[in-house]
């Protein structure tokens, strides 16, 4: 809020989503792929099976190209984008979890070194040493997930951290273990799906069928773990989060549809994996690619669900998506939002300019003028009285976040509010009036009048 605003026509949240989903698809493969390759090479050594060895070797180039190059850079990419779009939230997370991230970095050093060493030592060291390297790689990669899962899940379910501010309470929050189980399943099935594509290049039909069956078993186990983890995750969510996408009257129908997509994609994926297990000779490129797409659809959908169900917060019950802290609502209502939003306040002019500043401070992190969640389209059907009523209600809802009246089991029961998916409007009455004035000026009739008058 008190940072400059990066105006993106398609919305900052969308950019974070694109970068994050791309990264997790790669990073989870990097973990599961490590396990699958370690497992396959171990089998190859024990059974003296050259075809399995060739599969492990073929897959290892893909592992370093996606893991150490794309995975590493897109991981930094998440840092870059959240710092640009949500700097206040990034700062809050850094202050609480810097040691967690630093520990993850320690594992990352081992992971990167082992990935590069593994590929570089094919045919050069004894099998025992080569296996040590790939199992160390997998250990480091999985442990980085064990750490980062704490921070990711914290944002949705901070749990006891809200009272204690303890690092460990935040890390081991209510959705930590369900999410970890779910992600473990995802790692396994993504590895199975990707490596099947490598296995299909095996010219020997018998060997190929064996590989496809082995990888199908990874996928079946992965899907079952992911399903169990997903259901557990839904179960531990606070009622206010579940209300957003669960039940017949979900607050956000688009997110409820995403949930359906997620479950159907997982079902389709399970069927394809079972098909590969039962009839590996018939599992060729079309069904393998379909399985991969179903895996992507499930994972991408889940990430969308997890991010979307945080609304209206970026850190639930602590910080709203526009960077306003729950704890600072009374103060900002008294002093004014523009007393803190130093960059948004850099405008000169009358009432509408002040309104624009208030808009930039509180609304621009989600709404663009004409692009994503266009504010112009949203205000088009609203008249002055309606708009004043909406803004007044949104401002009053700020009191309900701080009064405790709507608190249930430590969470603000957002589903009981009139605008459960939007942060409350904060600021002085004069600022709210200015915002109304600015928003009304965006209505097509007013824009036309203004243009005509020139």
């Amino acid at each position, binding site marked *: 809020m*008190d*940072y*400059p*605003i*990066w105006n993106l026509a398609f919305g900052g949240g969308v950019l974070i989503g694109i970068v994050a989903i791309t990264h997790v698809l790669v990073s989870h493969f990097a973990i599961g792929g490590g396990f699958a390759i370690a497992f396959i090479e171990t089998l190859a050594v024990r059974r003296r099976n050259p075809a399995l060895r060739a599969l492990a070797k073929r897959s290892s180039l893909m592992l370093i190209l996606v893991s150490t*190059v794309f995975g*590493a*850079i*897109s991981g*930094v*990419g998440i*840092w*870059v*984008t959240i*710092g*640009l779009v949500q*700097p*206040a939230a*990034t*700062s*809050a997370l*850094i*202050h*609480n979890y*810097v*040691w*967690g991230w*630093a*520990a993850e*970095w*320690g*594992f*990352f*050093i*081992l992971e*990167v*070194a*082992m990935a*590069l*060493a593994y590929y*570089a*030592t*094919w*045919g*050069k*060291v*004894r*099998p025992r*040493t*080569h*296996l*040590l*390297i790939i199992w160390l790689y997998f250990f*480091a990669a999985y442990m980085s997930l064990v750490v980062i899962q704490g921070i990711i899940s914290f944002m949705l379910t901070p749990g006891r951290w809200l009272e204690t*501010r303890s*690092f*460990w309470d935040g890390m081991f929050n209510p959705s930590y273990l369900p999410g970890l189980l779910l992600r473990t399943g995802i790692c396994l099935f993504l590895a199975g799906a990707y490596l099947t594509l490598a296995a299909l290049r095996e010219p020997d039909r018998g060997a190929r069928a064996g590989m496809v069956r082995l990888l199908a078993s990874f996928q079946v186990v992965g899907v079952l773990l992911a399903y169990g983890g997903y259901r557990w995750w839904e179960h531990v969510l606070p009622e206010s989060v579940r209300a957003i996408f669960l039940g017949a009257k979900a607050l956000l129908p688009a997110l409820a549809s995403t949930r359906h997509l997620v479950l159907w994609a997982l079902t389709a994926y399970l069927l394809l994996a079972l098909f590969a297990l039962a009839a590996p000779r018939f599992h060729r490129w079309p069904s393998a690619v379909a399985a991969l797409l179903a895996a992507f659809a499930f994972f991408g959908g889940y990430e969308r669900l997890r991010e979307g169900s945080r609304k209206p917060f970026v850190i639930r019950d602590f910080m709203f998506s526009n960077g306003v802290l729950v704890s600072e609502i009374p103060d900002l209502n008294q002093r004014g939002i523009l007393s803190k939003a*130093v*960059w948004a306040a*850099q405008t000169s002019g009358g009432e509408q300019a002040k309104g624009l500043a208030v808009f930039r401070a509180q609304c621009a992190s989600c709404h663009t003028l004409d692009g994503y969640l266009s504010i112009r389209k949203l205000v088009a059907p609203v008249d002055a009285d309606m708009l004043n009523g909406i803004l007044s209600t949104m401002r009053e809802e700020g009191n309900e976040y701080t009064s405790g009246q709507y608190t249930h089991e430590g969470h603000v029961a957002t589903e009981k509010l009139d605008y459960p998916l939007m942060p409350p409007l904060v600021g002085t009455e004069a600022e709210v009036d200015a915002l109304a004035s600015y928003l009304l000026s965006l209505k097509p009739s007013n824009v036309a009048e203004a243009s005509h008058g020139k």
Partner: protein
Amino acid sequence: MESNLIPALDPAPLPGPPWLFHVLWVVTFLIHLLFVNTVLGGSLLAALAGLAGAGKREIQSLFVEVNAWAISFAITFGIAPLLFMQVLLGRFFYTATILVAWAWLGMLGLLMVGYYLNYVAKFRLRAGKGAGAVLIIEAACFLVIAAIQVAINLLHMQPGRWARVAEQAWAALADPTFVPRYVHFVLAAVAMSGALLAWVAVHRATKGGDAQILSGMARFGVRAALVATLLQLVDGFWLLLTLPEDVLKAFMRGGPATMVPLTLGILAGVLLLVVLAQIADPLANPTRVRRVAELMVGAVVFMVLTRHQLRTIYLAPARANEQVTVAPQLGALALFLVVFVLCVALTVYALVKAAKDRPQAGEDAA
């Protein structure tokens, strides 16, 4: 205007004492910079390898093979200083990056292109094909990344320039110290990579190999290091003289704390020149070549300290009223330290084992 635009300090306490974050920041940045110098200087020397009398292909091969690892480690070791810096100076850093958001984000695209091009060059060279154009584009990617980093680094410690840059993002380059500072980093990278090249050639010569090619590699490395260090001395004084007057005065008044690292850094540079100038035939002077590499690392260490001190001086007025609270997370800090020591130990153990372990006659290889 200046102080009005600085975001408020994050209300959360620091999870450890500030000095610890400074130490971790400087140490991890130093390691990061050593890899960055290898990547930037190495890709430049690989692109310019045609200027070498002999060993062009070997020079290119060496740097693409080294960079396949060095780029990864430059990224990995870049994460830690980025983390620790955000704890201490997040509000300055986020603001600077948002003001040049597309450049900051675009840096990732350039990094990815540069890294993949390195693999393209690596596989082309292994297949006996040429890779000149690929290496030139790769080097260009890393040169632009360096410029973006220097611009953001300057911007985050000069809140007085923010309003202007908010109006026109290109103004991020309009600082008198930008060019000398950028040139300073590029020359350091070239000098260090030149020293590395000469050292590898000398090392290979002790194990046999084509003397003419190795001599060509070593001479090219020494020449690059010599020219870059010579220019560096000139550029270093240019950079010092373009510093804002108040910053320069505060730096000079810092006493031994600021003057010792700077003086030692300059001395290391002068000594480097002397040693480099004495190397007529690198393969016949392995000790001097090793001395060059040691002096180079020493110069980087002192300059990293000076750079950190300059940042503190630049930001002193903006942070004058900063009321930082500290609530150490001792358990989490212990977790980090244990994980870090364990992972570094495992990394060293596995890499040494991978380097030494070779199958006996009749034994299978992996």
